[in-house]
C-alpha cells in the first residue's frame, strides 16, 4: 500500500542536510491524517465531516544539548530547511537562559522500516453514507427506548500515517487506523426536573465496530443497558460517603491503571511522581498483591495502537508491575538514562506540532486466577456480579459491596498519588438486595488502591477507550482489566457523597 508520507523524501533529505550544515541533530516528524466523522441526535444527522491534513515538525538538538522545535502545515523541501533553522535558532537562544540539556538521542537505535496495520473496513474501504445511516440508526433506536431519553451518537474514523527521520539515518513509516462510536444518553424527568447522563462506546481499528453484525449488536447492547440505567437513575438516591469494598468494571479498572498508575510510571515524571525516589524508578518494590500485573503496549487492531514511537523507535510491551512487583517504567530515550531505566519507545505525540512525551498506549491490569464469569461482558447483570462475589465468599450476610459501573473519566495528580474517577452508576450489593444509587466519585491514593485489590472476575476485556491528555496533547488511549476487579475497603479509598 502506498503511503502518503512516502511522498516527502526530498523534504526529509533537505532537513537532514540542513541539520548537518548547522551542526545539530534533527528529528523530523511528518504526519498525514485522514478523518471522517458523523454525529446524530435522536436519529437526525447533526454533522458530518471528512478531511485530510498533513504537516511536519522538526526537533533539533545542538551539540551542547539545547533543543528547539518548529513546525508548519506545508511540507516542502524549502519549508523543511527553514524549520531546521528556526528550531536551531530557538535552541541556541535557550542556551543563554540555562536551558535543560538533552541527551539520549545518540543511544536511539537506527531504524529503517515501514510498519503497516491492516484495516479491512478502514476509511478508504467503507462508505460515508453507510456510516451516516448507522450512526443515525443507533441514535434513533436508543432514544426510542423511552420518551424521557435523548441520545447523541458520535462516530469518528481516522487513518493516521507518520514518518520519522533522524540525523542518524533512521527513516521509519507507520500507520495507526482507528475508529470509535459513542452515544451520550440523557434521561430527563420533566415533572421533577431530575436528569441523568450516561455513555456507551465501542472502539477499534475500523468501521467494523458498528458495521458488522457483531459490532452493531455489541454497541447497541451497551447503549440499551446504559439507557435503561439512565432511566432508573432518575429515581435513584445517593450513596452514603465512606470506604467500602468495591467492584469496578474493566473500564474503570483501565482508568485506575492508566490515570492512577501508568502516568506515575512515565519517565518524564521521575523527579516528582510517586513511583520514583530521588529521580530513580522504584523497581523491585512490591506495590500490589502477587496475583496482580500491569502491562502496557501496542495491540494491533486496538484503538490506541502505535507500533513505533514518535521518536522513531519500536515501541515495546512493558511489564510495569509483574506479580505485584514494580518492574519497568515507560521511558523514552531522553529521560531513560537519567532515570536509570531502559528506554521502551514510549514517546507519543498528538501531532506534528508536538514534541513526544513518554506515555501509554494500551494498558491492562490483570489479576491471575480470576473468579469465573462465563458470559460476555455485555450480558453481565448486577445480579451476576453479586452472585460471583457471594460464590467467592467476598460478599457475606450483613455486608455491603458497591459495584461501580461505567467509566465517566478520571484525573490524577502523579506527584501526590491522588486520583479521582467517576462512574455512571453505583449498585449497592447485599446478599438479599441490589439497589441502584447515583454515581459518586471514587477517590483515593494510587498505591492504596493497588494494594487493596482482592480478586478479578472474568477474563480480561481491553477495549476501554479514551483520550489521554498530557501537557496539552491528547492521544488515543485504551486498555482494560478482568471484566471486574474487587477492591477491599481501605481508609485511603473513598466513595464521595452527592
Amino acid at each position, binding site marked *: 500500500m502506498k503511503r502518503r508520507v512516502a511522498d516527502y523524501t526530498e523534504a526529509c533529505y533537505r532537513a537532514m542536510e540542513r541539520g548537518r550544515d548547522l551542526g545539530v541533530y534533527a528529528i523530523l516528524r511528518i504526519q498525514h491524517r485522514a478523518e471522517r466523522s458523523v454525529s446524530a441526535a435522536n436519529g437526525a444527522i447533526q454533522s*458530518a465531516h471528512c478531511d*485530510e491534513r498533513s504537516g511536519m515538525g522538526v526537533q533539533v538538538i545542538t551539540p551542547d544539548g539545547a*533543543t*528547539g522545535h518548529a513546525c508548519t502545515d506545508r511540507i516542502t523541501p524549502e519549508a523543511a530547511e527553514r524549520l531546521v533553522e528556526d528550531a536551531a535558532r530557538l535552541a541556541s537562544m535557550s542556551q543563554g*537562559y540555562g*536551558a*535543560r540539556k538533552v541527551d539520549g538521542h545518540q543511544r536511539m537505535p537506527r531504524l529503517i522500516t515501514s510498519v503497516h496495520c491492516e484495516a479491512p473496513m478502514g476509511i478508504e474501504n467503507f462508505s*460515508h453514507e453507510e456510516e451516516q445511516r448507522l450512526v443515525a440508526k443507533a441514535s434513533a433506536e436508543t432514544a426510542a427506548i423511552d420518551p424521557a431519553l435523548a441520545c447523541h451518537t458520535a462516530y469518528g474514523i481516522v487513518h493516521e500515517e507518520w514518518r520519522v527521520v533522524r540525523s542518524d539515518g533512521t527513516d521509519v513509516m507507520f500507520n495507526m487506523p482507528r475508529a470509535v462510536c459513542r452515544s451520550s444518553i440523557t434521561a430527563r424527568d420533566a415533572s421533577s426536573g431530575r436528569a441523568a447522563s450516561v455513555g456507551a462506546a465501542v472502539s477499534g481499528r475500523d468501521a467494523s465496530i458498528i458495521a458488522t453484525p457483531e459490532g452493531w449488536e455489541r454497541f447497541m447492547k451497551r447503549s440499551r443497558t446504559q439507557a435503561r440505567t439512565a432511566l432508573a437513575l432518575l429515581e435513584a438516591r445517593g450513596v452514603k460517603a465512606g470506604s467500602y469494598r468495591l467492584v469496578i468494571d474493566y473500564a474503570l479498572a483501565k482508568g485506575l491503571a492508566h490515570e492512577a498508575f501508568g502516568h506515575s510510571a512515565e519517565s518524564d515524571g521521575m523527579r516528582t511522581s510517586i513511583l520514583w525516589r530521588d529521580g530513580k524508578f522504584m523497581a523491585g518494590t512490591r506495590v500490589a498483591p502477587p496475583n496482580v500485573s500491569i502491562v502496557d503496549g501496542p495491540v494491533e487492531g486496538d484503538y490506541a495502537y502505535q507500533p513505533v514511537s514518535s521518536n522513531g523507535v519500536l515501541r515495546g510491551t512493558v511489564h510495569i508491575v509483574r506479580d505485584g512487583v514494580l518492574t519497568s517504567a515507560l521511558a523514552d530515550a531522553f529521560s531513560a538514562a537519567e532515570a536509570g531505566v531502559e528506554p521502551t519507545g514510549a514517546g507519543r505525540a498528538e501531532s506534528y506540532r508536538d514534541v513526544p512525551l513518554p506515555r501509554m498506549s494500551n494498558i491492562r491490569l490483570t489479576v491471575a486466577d480470576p473468579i469465573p464469569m462465563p458470559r460476555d461482558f455485555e450480558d453481565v447483570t448486577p445480579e451476576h456480579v453479586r452472585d460471583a462475589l457471594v460464590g467467592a465468599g467476598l460478599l457475606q450476610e450483613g455486608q455491603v459491596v458497591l459495584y461501580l459501573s461505567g467509566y*465517566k473519566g478520571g*484525573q490524577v495528580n502523579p506527584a501526590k498519588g491522588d486520583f479521582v474517577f467517576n462512574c455512571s452508576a453505583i449498585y449497592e450489593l447485599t446478599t438479599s438486595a441490589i439497589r441502584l444509587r447515583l454515581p459518586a466519585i471514587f477517590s483515593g491514593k494510587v498505591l492504596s488502591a493497588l494494594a487493596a485489590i482482592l480478586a478479578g472476575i472474568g477474563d480480561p476485556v481491553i477495549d476501554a477507550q479514551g483520550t489521554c491528555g498530557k501537557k496539552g496533547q491528547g492521544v488515543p488511549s485504551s486498555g482494560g482489566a478482568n471484566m471486574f476487579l474487587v477492591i477491599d475497603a481501605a481508609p485511603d479509598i473513598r466513595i464521595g457523597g452527592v
Partner: protein
Amino acid sequence: MFAANDTAEALAKALATAAGWRLTVTSSARLSMGMDDGELGGAYSPPRKVQEVSGSVFIVWEDGTVSKGLVSGSTIEQLKTKMSMWRSAAYRDDDAAHIAPLAEPAPVGLSDPRVAKVVQQSPRLAFDTLTAIASTARKAGADNVDASVACAAGNTVTATSTGLWVSYAHTSLSCGWVLNKSFAMWRLGRALETWKGLEPMVASTGEMLAASRNRVELAGGRVRVIFWPAVVDQLVQHYLVHNLSGDMVVEKRSRFSLDQFAAGHAAFRNDFSLELDTTIPMAPGSYPCTDEGIPGSKVVLVDGGRLVTPLLNTKYARKSGLAPTALPAAGLSPGYAGFRLRLGEPLAYGAMLSSADEALLVTGVLGMHTQDPVSGNFSLAASDALLVKEGRLVGAAKVVISGNFFDILGDSDTAAAVHPAYETPALAGVCRVEA
C-alpha cells in the same frame, strides 16, 4: 506560508458555483516555551515556533445538501481534491443549509503590534518572562516550578456568499505557573501587558503554597467553601455553558428546555445574571463576527434569575425559532471567553476572605470533567483545600467536596466576590465536605 487572504480568495473562487458558503481562514505564527521542574526547555518543553494556516469551510450545494471541511496551508494546492472530498461527504441538514444574511461585524481591536514583533523578531522577551516567573516563584518559597509562556500573531478572514468579507489582525499572549505541582495560575490576553505585573500574582500563589504546608485535620460536614475564581470558571463551563448551549437545549440534553426559555423560567436566584460579551476591546474572547458571520455582541443569557436565550448558532436558532447569538470562542475558559456572572452585590475578594470566620478555600479540583452537567451534582476531590480561619489561610487538607451547583447558586447565603486578576468572581457557598 500563504496568507489567510490568499487562501480565502482561492476558496471563495472555487466555491462560486455552490448555492451558498462561508469560510474562516487564519494564518498565524506562534511562539511558546516551558519550564518543567524548574528547568527551562528540555526534551518535553523546548522553545517552539508554529506557523500554519487553519480554518473551516461550510458549503451549501445546489441540491440542498451541506458539507463541512477544514482549511490548512496546503488547501490552495489541493483545492480540486478538497472540493471533491467535501462534495463526497455532503449530508442533508435542512436547518443548517443557510448562510447568514450580511451583517456589519463588530468593530473591536484585537491586535498589539508589539506582540507580533516578539513572535516574529524578538523572542527574548518570552524567555525573560518565563525566567522571571520562575525566579519570583522560587522567592515565594516554591521548591518545584512548572511554567509556560506563549504568544501568537495572525490574521483571520471570515467571508460568506452573502457578501461578508472581514479581515482582521489579532494577537494573543498567555503565561501560567504551577508551584509544587499544587497551586496554579494562568493569564491570557492580547496585549503585551499580559506579561507584566506578574510578581504579585506569583507571590500570592506562593502564599497559598506556604499555608498548605501546615496540614490540618478537618471534621467535615456542611462547610462554607470559597471557590477560587478559576474553579468557578470550571463550574460555569461544566454546568452553565453546557446547559445553555443551543444544541443541548434543542436536542433535549440540557437541564433547561426551549419552553422554559420562552416562558422566562426563573431558574436561578433573582439577583443572578449571566451574559456573554464578545466585543470587549483586546479581550481574548472577542471577535468581529463568528465563523458563521454573526456579529460579535453582548448576549444576555440569564437576567434576574430568568432564562432569556440559549447560545444559538444559525442552525439551532432556526430550529428553535429564535435569533442567532454571539458564541463563546472555542477553547477559552468562561471568564476569558467573555462570560460575565453576577450574583447579588459582589464583595471584593479580599473582604470575602478576611470576613470568613472559618471556611475552606478551594483553588483546584480533580475530576470536574467526570461530573454530570445536567443534574448539577458534583463530587470533587481537592488535594489542598486551604483552611481559612478569622480571615487568614492557616493550613490545608485533602477533602472531597460534594453538592449541587444549581442548589448552591440558588442558596440565599451564597455570595460572589470580585478578584482583581479574574473576570469570573469567587463564590462562597455551603457544601458537604468529607475530610
